[in-house]
């Protein structure tokens, strides 16, 4: 139960660089918050710096989900492209840039799962058609979880703070409500009621959008 929530900067190599004339080197001293601000403001250098600092973490997640290779690379690539093109939605004051990137990466991973699932169904449908057999049904599990995942991640994006931070600590850092209270400095009761309301909200979203679970 020890998931660190504040993203640590990857350890950058201390390559001895002599006589660097590049503008980027003066930018390299910017702290993460400033990189976030510049990113939101559309500064290309901030995109390059964000990539330098956090591409390893993002790609690490993608590789964890898909193994090394084209799928993982695509996720990492799409994460940064989406972050850049959607930078107007990034609120540097609400969340650190690396956390935002990680959130986007989760979407891209879930999207990739959903796409694979779709392809599998299409391939299967084609196969059954060719064999003039009825489409083999999938266990209700697989594709509904894939779809749920996309919906839940989408709903998380709509949450304000501190609700989002709290539920993400529970979901992704595997912290108990007591640990979350400790981490955030919020009262235990507040954390509990936010968790309750957020889970209700996510349930409504799932039951509204998808087929409701049998009671």
């Amino acid at each position, binding site marked *: 139960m020890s*998931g*660190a929530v504040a*993203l640590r*900067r*990857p*350890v*950058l*190599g*201390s*390559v*001895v*660089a*002599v006589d660097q004339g*590049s503008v980027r080197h003066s930018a*390299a001293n910017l702290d993460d918050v400033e990189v976030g601000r510049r990113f939101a403001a559309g500064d*290309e250098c901030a*995109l*390059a710096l964000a*990539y*330098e600092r956090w*591409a*390893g*973490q993002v*790609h*690490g*997640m*993608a590789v964890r989900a898909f193994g*090394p290779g084209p799928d993982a*690379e695509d996720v*990492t*690539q799409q994460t*940064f492209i989406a972050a*850049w*093109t959607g930078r107007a939605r990034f609120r540097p004051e609400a969340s650190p840039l690396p956390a935002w990137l*990680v959130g986007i990466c*989760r979407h891209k*991973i*879930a999207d990739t799962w959903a796409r694979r699932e779709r392809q599998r169904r299409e391939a299967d449908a084609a196969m059954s058609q060719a064999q003039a057999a009825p489409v083999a049904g999938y266990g209700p599990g697989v594709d509904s*979880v894939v779809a*749920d*995942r996309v919906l*839940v*991640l989408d709903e998380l994006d709509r949450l304000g703070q501190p609700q989002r931070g709290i539920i993400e600590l*529970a*979901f*992704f*850092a*595997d912290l108990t*409500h007591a640990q979350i209270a400790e981490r955030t400095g919020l009262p235990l009761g507040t954390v*509990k*009621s936010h*968790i*309750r309301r957020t*889970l*209700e909200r996510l*349930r409504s*979203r*799932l039951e509204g959008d998808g087929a409701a*679970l049998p*009671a």
Partner: protein
Amino acid sequence: MQHCLPEQLALAALREPLPDDDALHLAACDRCRGEVTSLRRAVDAVAVPELAEPGPAVEPPPSVWAAIAAATGTTVAPDSLTPEPVGAQVLPFRSRRRGLVLVAAAAVAGAVLGAGVTAVLRGGDATESVTAVALDPLNDEQASGRAEVVVREDGSRALQVDLEAPALDGEYYELWLIEPQVVDMVPLGVLRPGTQTFELPAGLDLGEYPVVDVSVEPIDGDPTHSGVSVARGQLDS
């Protein structure tokens, strides 16, 4: 019987252990269990290891940045993906060694490898030189030299190195044997300009680690390769 509080059921949906009273009630109450199940659907959808907080960093290949730059029209590049402008040549490393893959050297390194001279065999001496290689400067570095594998009568091996290179201030040269993919490596020790002999570990397969590499290391207490190589050759085994 009193039902569990909604907050407790939410915690149960997250699989937090409940106080004994609540746990006992929950086990027996269909209504409370139904509530937990319905709340848990969202938890089960996303609380999976693949979506958890980032674990170990893995550096993406350079093509990833290239695609991002192409899609965003960005003209600047991360420092890690641009060649070091002066002097030092940088090796590509796996991420366990450093956070960023330093790609600058990959192409150049390939060109330098294989530049070594062929094996020299001398019979009859107390030592036998089995192979020697020229250490060629990388980029415009001033370092160059020669490395020779010698086998003593007792079968032990050593690497004799002649290094011509400027003296360093606050840094030092280090000698490495590296595999061709430039990932795994064996440090042989601190090197100074002049002639020195380094013991080779018994059982070390030079065919596996044929690249003789001279790096410049900062005195920073970090035992790993700095990524700055100044001369290299490849043993022909």
